């Protein structure tokens, strides 16, 4: 195989890169290599509408099959890159094939972190990252699994817990930190989500560590905690984050550790090798210039556009405003900006009304907002985040004053 641009990864980032290349007039050959057998599809619904059976898989496809064919974007699916030879500009694939590239776009995403304790490989232990993961989960639900244990109180875990409750399962959620959403949101929001999940019957245990998974006949039947207690389980969902898929690039000499380092045009330290999306560590202006990885659709899409433009000779620095969403029960959470590192959080509105926001400030500047059933704040806050605006906290906390008046 040989192509002017080889894209490694057929997720949101890879798909957006291929589309952006063609939209920006790139006429060369493009090959997309994907580990899964499926054409590029949306991952966020996997823990939401797809698991809840509100959407068919075909509705998740980012584009129909003929779209890729019509644009001469060759799909090489069901295989992955295992080695990169940057000197000869060649990648080796898991099936023994090789592909020579003019430019490589690494959009391989991440692998779900697995539990490292005994029993982690029992049947009935699931991640929520791919269609295959969720299809297996749904098959077990169909086969009668009713007791779900979710390990990890991040967005994936909470979304999955909400869907399992909707499907009538009992759900216990185990979180090692003192609260849910510890890595991604402030305490007010976390408390509200904990209370909401508990009100919907999710049994949330915080500050607990999983010591082992217990099995019977090769299938998980319980989750053993450090204090000796055992939570019975028909299935276990592990949502404890992802590890960036960058090993072949790092082995080839690319700079990076937790992710591969990229500059503002998404270039790695290797010649003609770009990296985008979940696996790309970049200095983000919304994180005060800190080098971070962002695991979001927004980041994958916007980095893809930045890389494609650079390849097409129209470089523009990646500095897109981060945004994110999560749907749980009747709650639509919408976030703009990055709250990590905030030193003050302010409640706007009353959580009891189920429509409110939490504003995050860092050294007096507006860095992020989490909006629950409050799209107005979400839309109006974008400008404040982009400007890192300085606004008096007492005004921000007054929900009667619209954010666009600040």
């Amino acid at each position: 195989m040989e192509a002017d641009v080889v894209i490694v990864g057929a997720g949101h980032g890879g798909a957006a890169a291929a589309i952006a290349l063609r939209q920006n007039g790139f006429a060369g050959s493009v090959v997309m290599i994907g580990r899964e057998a499926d054409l590029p599809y949306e991952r966020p619904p996997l823990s939401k509408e797809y698991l809840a059976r509100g959407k068919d898989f075909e509705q998740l496809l980012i584009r129909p099959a003929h779209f890729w064919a019509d644009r001469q974007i060759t799909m090489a699916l069901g295989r992955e890159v295992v080695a990169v030879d940057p000197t000869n500009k060649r990648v080796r694939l898991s099936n023994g094939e090789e592909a020579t590239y003019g430019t490589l776009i690494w959009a391989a995403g991440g692998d779900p972190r697995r539990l490292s304790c005994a029993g982690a490989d029992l049947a009935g232990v699931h991640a929520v990252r791919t269609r295959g993961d969720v299809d297996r989960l749904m098959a077990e639900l169909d086969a009668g699994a009713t007791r779900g244990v979710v390990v990890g109180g991040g967005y994936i875990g909470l979304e999955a817990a909400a869907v399992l409750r909707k499907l009538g399962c009992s759900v216990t959620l185990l979180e090692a930190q003192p609260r849910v959403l510890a890595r991604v949101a402030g305490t007010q929001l976390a408390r509200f989500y904990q209370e909401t999940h508990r009100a919907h019957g999710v049994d949330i245990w915080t500050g607990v560590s999983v010591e082992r998974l217990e099995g019977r006949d090769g299938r998980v039947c319980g989750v053993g905690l450090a204090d000796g207690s055992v939570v019975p389980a028909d299935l276990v969902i592990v949502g404890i984050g992802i590890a960036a898929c960058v090993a072949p690039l790092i082995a080839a000499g690319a700079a990076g550790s937790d992710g591969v380092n990229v500059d503002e045009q998404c270039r790695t330290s290797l010649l003609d090798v770009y990296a985008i999306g979940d696996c790309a560590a970049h200095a983000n202006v919304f994180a005060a210039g800190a080098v971070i990885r962002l695991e979001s659709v927004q980041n994958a899409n916007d980095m893809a556009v930045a890389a494609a433009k650079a390849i097409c000779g129209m470089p523009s620095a990646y500095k897109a405003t981060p945004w994110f969403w999560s749907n749980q029960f009747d709650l639509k959470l919408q976030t703009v900006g990055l709250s990590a590192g905030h030193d003050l959080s302010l409640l706007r509105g009353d959580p009891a009304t189920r429509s409110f926001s939490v504003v995050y400030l860092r050294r007096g500047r507006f860095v992020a907002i989490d909006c629950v059933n409050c799209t107005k704040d979400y839309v109006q806050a974008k400008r404040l985040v982009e400007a890192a605006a300085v606004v008096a906290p007492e005004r921000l906390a007054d929900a009667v004053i619209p954010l666009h008046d600040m």
Partner: protein
Amino acid sequence: MINLTVKTRDGVAHAVEGLAGRTLMEAIRKADLYELVAMCGGSCSCATCHVFVEAGPSGIDVPASEDESDLLDSSDYRAANSRLSCQIVLDPDLAGLVVQIAPES
């Protein structure tokens, strides 16, 4: 099948077929058009599926919800007939609908 017309940003009109119960966004995405990003996949969390309704039954050119209207406010190109195509659920009454894909904000 519900027959629709979607105009791309270059002004070209495309015949698009939609399914009842699915959204206009899905119909446009299934058709062979580049331009609709629809980044959030229909969660009403971005405004990248913004269209202008040029012809259709009365009322279809007015946002269905406050959330949709708020999101449309984020576009530099909001007009009186702006809609998010992910919020238009197709039904046979919408046969003949004509929409123009809005410029990128």
